[in-house]
């Protein structure tokens, strides 16, 4: 009860709406922040959030999960090449919406695959998130050497056709992604919870975002996706996410059931 009042206060004051997020997750994140700030109870954190914008900003970062990887789930990216690329090849131009892109790793992964498949020149990737801090980092495209090692393994396992180092330039402890990958990605601020249809697109990727939402909110966002996709458009969800609990199960066919890749029915 107290937590729901706190979320209401955040929404009223800052416009960020976490009221329909999974409660166990929100409780965990708020408890962690309270422990770090040495706050005893929820009413104390509520006062602090309403009066201390820096602190509120920290909590917003806590509640917005930006954990992501390049080529997370090798089998998904393998299936993307095998089952989705042939569909995309039939279009003269391709618009892809990457919803909840966080720090951009999956958008770069997509750009790499499209480049290898010869489709990138006619593609625009709209990569959106409500977390501006994460978007700014995504735009920079700078990642640490240590993490790039992990991504390289993921890339190879997922059926990558080149040497992963072809896609970035090293500079001391970091790498920066190539300009040729960034060129067709449009980074934009969009909030799935409060904003409306973005554009009509051929494909939507939204992976491991909906798991944070309750059933009502999942339904609402699925409607947004359904309205944004052209007929025959592709929807890619995270490997543990599905449509069975939403109203949209009947409105898609499964391109790859295990990898949660769906095609909007005509």
């Amino acid at each position, binding site marked *: 009860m107290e937590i729901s009042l706190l979320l209401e206060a955040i929404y009223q004051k800052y416009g960020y709406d976490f009221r329909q997020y999974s409660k166990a997750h929100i409780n965990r994140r708020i408890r962690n922040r309270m422990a770090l700030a040495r706050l005893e109870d929820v009413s104390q954190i509520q006062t602090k959030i309403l009066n201390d914008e820096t602190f509120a900003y920290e909590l917003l970062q806590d509640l917005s999960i930006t954990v992501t990887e390049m080529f997370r789930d090798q089998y998904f990216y393998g299936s993307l090449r095998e089952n989705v690329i042939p569909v995309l090849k039939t279009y003269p131009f391709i618009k892809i919406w990457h919803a909840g892109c966080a720090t951009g790793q999956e958008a770069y992964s997509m750009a790499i695959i499209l480049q290898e498949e010869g489709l990138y020149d006619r593609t625009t990737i709209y990569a959106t998130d409500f977390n501006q801090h994460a978007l700014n980092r995504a735009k920079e495209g700078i990642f640490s050497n240590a993490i790039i090692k992990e991504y390289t393994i993921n890339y190879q396992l997922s059926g990558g056709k080149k040497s992963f180092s072809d896609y970035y330039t090293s500079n001391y402890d970091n790498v920066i992604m190539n300009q040729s990958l960034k060129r067709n990605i449009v980074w934009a601020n969009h909030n799935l919870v409060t904003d409306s249809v973005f554009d009509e697109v051929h494909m939507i990727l939204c992976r491991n975002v909906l798991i944070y939402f309750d059933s009502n909110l999942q339904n609402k966002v699925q409607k947004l996706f359904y309205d944004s996709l052209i007929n025959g458009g592709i929807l890619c969800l995270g490997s543990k996410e*599905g449509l069975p609990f939403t109203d949209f199960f009947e409105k898609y066919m499964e391109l790859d059931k295990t990898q949660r890749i769906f095609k909007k029915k005509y």
Partner: protein
Amino acid sequence: MRYEAIVIGVSSGGMNALKFIFSTLPADFSIPIIIVQHMSARSDNEWIKLLNEKSNLTVKQADEKEKIACPTEQLFGRETGNIYIAPANYHLLIEKDKTFSLTIDEHVNFARPSIDVLFESAADAYKNKLIGVILTGSNNDGAKGIKRIKEYGGLAIIQDPETAESPTMPASAIAVIKPDYILSLEKIIELLIKIDTNQSR
């Protein structure tokens, strides 16, 4: 007192322990069991299917928003007991309405899934109607979680470190709480069966 769920945390040495548990628990065991076994992020979760074949109960991966079987409902023959396992590379949490949530939050104690994350959310959801079990493992994940279970008045059972393949994890739990039981794996299973039989009457 009726217990409504059992959470088990297990790490290195866990495969043998889980095989033993699943082949020993009888088919009419009614309390749902939710398990975090530390696993490589790239695991394809095939091992869950293999363990299911060796088990008298249904062993499955926990799905997002899935409703956990409720023992009181079983009295009317509607649901059967189940064993749920956290998928690799996701944290598993339990909501107050006894459904599962998955997250890809940062690793906790170098682990995802983390035992602490499951245990703490399970304690919030089940309060004192929860049994927490810490088995073999070579880190200290689960210690904070089992503490939360005790704070709510739940039951804490720890594998006797001397009988565990890797003693560190049970020993770390014993260092932060006073467990209700410290037992060998065989005795833990006996105790769970006894609790289940008594409350099923």
